[in-house]
Every structure is written in structure tokens, then in C-alpha cells.
């Protein structure tokens, strides 16, 4: 027993991720934390998407189920779990059963290397970004088999279109990622590891978004467009839009299996947003880590997580005051006030110094990813859908040549001193 306690405590003073330190207990703890965090994030995304889309369309969204619809995701989850599980006649039972699990597996395994902080990752593989790109490309297999196993026309066409789209935009994503990786090698050794990429941004005093302006920016733009297409979201959601193909490859899936696809889609969105945040937006770094240093600035920036949660709690209390005074609304008012109290309590806990130092990295990373989630919802509310041939044209004829040109330009600009030296040497001979 004492051995075990010592094993648990031996990790707390190390400066590595649990996977790199070989500590299995803490690795399992981190895995469970990632699971729980992802589930909470998906539930929150469900609610946020409906509310934000509604407000963008000048309506209110779900308001009945809980105070301001806060319990709507739970009601949705209950409905999905209790629905009848229908398997179409003539469908291949084994493949029909396995397909959602492949997609969920691919979407969740990606989070093994996502860095929430310099030691807050499950593990830090040396090929981190390569692993993430590879495993997220495994979800295409799940979609293709799902469409095939449904033994029906709409899912098959939806699956083929969806996988063609995902494979095309993977190429553009890969090129944008490579041009970001090249920037890590400008100072010291280049690296493929996710934590190493953020540390390279810290060492070079610049987010890769602003590096060699506008090259980093265009690379980020290519990745931002390709990642929306990769996750089958608007405006690239032709294969699964309801008015086009009656929900595409997951038409025949009902209840729990559909919720697995839904979970996998939102997890994939969070995963590719994490890649974008790590590669271009500085990962877990707070704004201006090298410019505004010193204890006062560190203290000021470390107060922001707590202030954010207090602000959210204040919004909840304000809305509690605005609730109708009818006796039937009493439970909702109390519920909203309770929720606001919980948020305010979390904010107050984040002011404690011991928590403040640890939670800063995770907060900044999550805030940046949350910004990307808001962008996803904003795109859905704003853009009309691409037709399939327009979609493929954009992927192959616009993004791919731009990505290639960007790669060459980034390489040339990054190596300009060596290239100039070689040109001078050739001219002087």
C-alpha cells in the first residue's frame, strides 16, 4: 500500500506527461479526465449550438426544458437512449454494429496527444501531429462502412460523398500542417511533437499565425477551411444535410447508435480545433508570454479564469432577476440561480493560488478551442451550403495549389539566409 502511494506521489514532482514518465496510474486518471471533459464539452456544445443559432436567427431556441433550455441536452440524451433500436432488413449486422464504434474510436483516440499544458497531456509522442492526422483519417473508414451496411441508397451515396470530401480535404490539411511544422525548425531542432510545437512558438516569441506574415495566416486559413470540410459541417455538410439526402450516412441509425455518430462528430470538431490552436494560435500560452512578463502581469493574467467564471455566474444571476414572477416559474428560477451559484463558486475556487497556477494553461487552451467552436456555429448560421461539385472543386483546385505554393514560399522565406549565401557563392565562383 505504501508502495502504491509512493508510486502515485512520485509523478507529482515530475515535469513530464504521465505517458513519458511511464506512470500508468496518472495516465489512466488523465484518460478519465479527458473522457469526462469531452462528454461535458459535447453536451455544452449541443446546448450552445441550438441557442446561438437561434439567437442568430432572431428567435429564442429551447426555453422550456430547464431554465433557458439548460436541461435540453439531458432530455435529448434520455430520448436517444430510450429510442427503439431499429436495424434495417438486409443490413449486414456485424458491420452495422461496428461502424459507429470505428468513428467514435478514431475521434477519441486523437485526444491522447492533445496538449492542455506543458505536462497536461496523456502522453507526448514524438510523432504527435502525424498520429493525430492519421487517426482522424480513420474515421473515413467508419463512415464508409456505415453507409454500406445500411443497405439503402441514401446512406450509400451520402457515405461515398462524405468520404470523398473528407479524403480530398485531408490533403489540403496535411500541406497546411507541414508548412507550420517547418516553422518549428527555425530555432534549433524541428519537432513533430505537439508540446514541442507550442514550446517552439514560445521560444520564437511569436504565434505561428503571425510568422512571415501573411504566410502563417494563409496556412491557418487553409487549415480552418479544410477542418470544417473534414468534419462535415456547414457549409460543407451536403452529405448529411436533412434537406438533401435525408441525413446521409446515418439515416438508418436510430437511438444510441446515432448518438455515437453525434458524439464522434463533435469530438472530431474539438480535435481538429485543438490541432489548429496548437499549431498556429500558441496552444496553452497566455497572450504575450514574452512581452508582458513579471509578477504583476503574471498575476493579472492568472486572475482571468476566475473572473470569466464569475462573469458567467453574474449573467446567470441577471437572468434570474429577469425571469417572469409567475408561480409556475419558481422551480426554473431557483434552478437558474443554483447554476449561477455553481459557476460563481468555480470562479472563486479559481482564485485560490494553488489552483490558479495549474489551471491557467488548461483555461487558455480551452478558451481558444471554445472560440473555434463558436466559429463553427457561426459558419452554420451564415453560409449557404456548397453543392458537391463546387465542394470538390474548392478542395482540389483552390486549396491544394495554394497549400503547395505556401509550402514552397514558407521554405524559401525560412531558409532565406542560407539560400542567399549559396547564391552568392555560386555568383562569386
Amino acid at each position, binding site marked *: 500500500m505504501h*508502495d*502504491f502511494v509512493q*508510486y502515485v506521489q*512520485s509523478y507529482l514532482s515530475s515535469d513530464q506527461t504521465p505517458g513519458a*514518465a*511511464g*506512470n*500508468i496510474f496518472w495516465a489512466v486518471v488523465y484518460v478519465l479526465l479527458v473522457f469526462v471533459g469531452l462528454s461535458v464539452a459535447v453536451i455544452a456544445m449541443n446546448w450552445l449550438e441550438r441557442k446561438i443559432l437561434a439567437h442568430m436567427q432572431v428567435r429564442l431556441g429551447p426555453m422550456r426544458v430547464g431554465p433557458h433550455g439548460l436541461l435540453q441536452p439531458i432530455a435529448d440524451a434520455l430520448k436517444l437512449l430510450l429510442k427503439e433500436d431499429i436495424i434495417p432488413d438486409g443490413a*449486414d449486422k*456485424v*458491420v452495422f454494429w*461496428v461502424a459507429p464504434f470505428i468513428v467514435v474510436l478514431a475521434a477519441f483516440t486523437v485526444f491522447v496527444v492533445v496538449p492542455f499544458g506543458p505536462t497536461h497531456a496523456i502522453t507526448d*509522442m*514524438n*510523432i504527435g501531429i*502525424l*498520429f493525430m*492526422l*492519421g*487517426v482522424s*483519417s*480513420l474515421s*473515413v*473508414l467508419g463512415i*464508409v*462502412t456505415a453507409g*454500406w*451496411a445500411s443497405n439503402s441508397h441514401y446512406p*450509400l451515396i451520402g457515405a*461515398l460523398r462524405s*468520404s470523398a470530401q473528407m*479524403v480530398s480535404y*485531408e490533403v489540403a490539411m496535411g500541406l497546411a500542417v507541414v508548412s507550420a511544422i517547418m516553422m518549428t525548425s527555425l530555432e534549433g*531542432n*524541428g*519537432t*513533430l*511533437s505537439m508540446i514541442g510545437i507550442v514550446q517552439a512558438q514560445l521560444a520564437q516569441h511569436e504565434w505561428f499565425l503571425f510568422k512571415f506574415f501573411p504566410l502563417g495566416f494563409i496556412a491557418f486559413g487553409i487549415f480552418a477551411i479544410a477542418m470544417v470540410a473534414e468534419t462535415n459541417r456547414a457549409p460543407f455538410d451536403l452529405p448529411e444535410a436533412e434537406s438533401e439526402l435525408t441525413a446521409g450516412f446515418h439515416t438508418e441509425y436510430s437511438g444510441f447508435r446515432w448518438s455515437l455518430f453525434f458524439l464522434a462528430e463533435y469530438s472530431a470538431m474539438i480535435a481538429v480545433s485543438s490541432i489548429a490552436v496548437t499549431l498556429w494560435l500558441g496552444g496553452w500560452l497566455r497572450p504575450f508570454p514574452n512581452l508582458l512578463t513579471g509578477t504583476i502581469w503574471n498575476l493579472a493574467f492568472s486572475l482571468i479564469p476566475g473572473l470569466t467564471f464569475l462573469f458567467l455566474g453574474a449573467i446567470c444571476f441577471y437572468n434570474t432577476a429577469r425571469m417572469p414572477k409567475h408561480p409556475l416559474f419558481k422551480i426554473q428560477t431557483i434552478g437558474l440561480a443554483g447554476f449561477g451559484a455553481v459557476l460563481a463558486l468555480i470562479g472563486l475556487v479559481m482564485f485560490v493560488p494553488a489552483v490558479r497556477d495549474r489551471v491557467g494553461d488548461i483555461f487558455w487552451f480551452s478558451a481558444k478551442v471554445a472560440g473555434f467552436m463558436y466559429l463553427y456555429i457561426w459558419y452554420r448560421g451564415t453560409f449557404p451550403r456548397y453543392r458537391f461539385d463546387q465542394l470538390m472543386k474548392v478542395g482540389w483546385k483552390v486549396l491544394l495549389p495554394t497549400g503547395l505554393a505556401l509550402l514552397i514560399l514558407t521554405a524559401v522565406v525560412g531558409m532565406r539566409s542560407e539560400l542567399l549565401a549559396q547564391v552568392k557563392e555560386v555568383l562569386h565562383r
Partner: protein
Amino acid sequence: MNPSLPSNPPVATPYFFYGLAAIMIIGGILVITRKNAVHSALALITTLLAQAALYLMLYAPFVAGVQIILYAGGIMVLFLFVIMLISIERNMKERQFNKQWVVGIVAAGALGGLLIAVYTTTKGGILFPPVGHESYVDGQNTQGIASLLFSQQSGTYMFAFEIASLLLLVAIIGAVVMAKKRI
């Protein structure tokens, strides 16, 4: 498991190896015996992913990453696409194995016998010492492969790299031409 052992060498290696080897062999047997081509493709994907894990055990992380991206995420998607474009329901009701299956198995058995003979003679035994652990430098695998492929001093495979890209170009043109309805 004793937690005070160093993490290198890992203690569970024989279990991982035998488990992954079992997955690969079972996947291979399923590939060659299933009637339904989609089931064979799924079994092959399992084999490829287990092989990527074996590459990680051999301290070749870059090859493992390339295997997952290209083989499992690219080539197998291509296979699944083509399986869905050709109608295999009719083919599932036909005879699955050749008329010459006996000769095939005898030939494979002869090849297997040859391989066993090579691996079990004493000379073969000397050639295969245990895999060493001290030769791996953490974080240098990708850089090492890159320097073999691209660097000016020791890049002996640059020409092969360019020829491989030419080969891929030829393959793309060939596949497009052959799958077109009207050339």
C-alpha cells in the same frame, strides 16, 4: 507490475508482442477466408493497425505514423470505395475458391518449409540475436529518416525519393485513364 522498474525496457513486451501477433494472424486468416469482401477489408484494416503498433514496439514511430495515414487511412478507403462500386452480392453466392486450391496450398507449404529450414539451422540461429535497447535516441527517429532522405551530406536516398514521386504521378495518370468511361 513493480512500479520501481525503469520504463525502458518495458516489462510487458512479450505480452504485447504475442497479443498483436495473434491479432495479425487472425486478421490475415479472416482476409483470405471471408466470402464478403467488406469483411475481408475490415479484417485487413485490423491487421494493418496491429502492424502499426508492432512498428511502435520496434522503435519506428515515423513508419508507424505513415502506415496509419497511408495504408489504413488511404489505401483501405480506396479498397472500400471500389468494393462498393462493384456489385459483390452476386459474387457472394458463387464458389469462392479456385479449382487449383490444392496446388496453391502445396506451393505455399513448400515455401513455408523453406523458410522454416532457414530459420532453424544453426547458422540461422546465430544471425538473430536479441533486439538491443541502447541504440534508440529519443526524438531522433524522424530527423534520422529525414537526413537519410534529404540532407546534403548523407542523403543517399534523394534520387529514390524523386523516382517515387514520379511513380506516384504515373500511377495517378494510369488509374484515371483506366477508370474513365471514354478515353
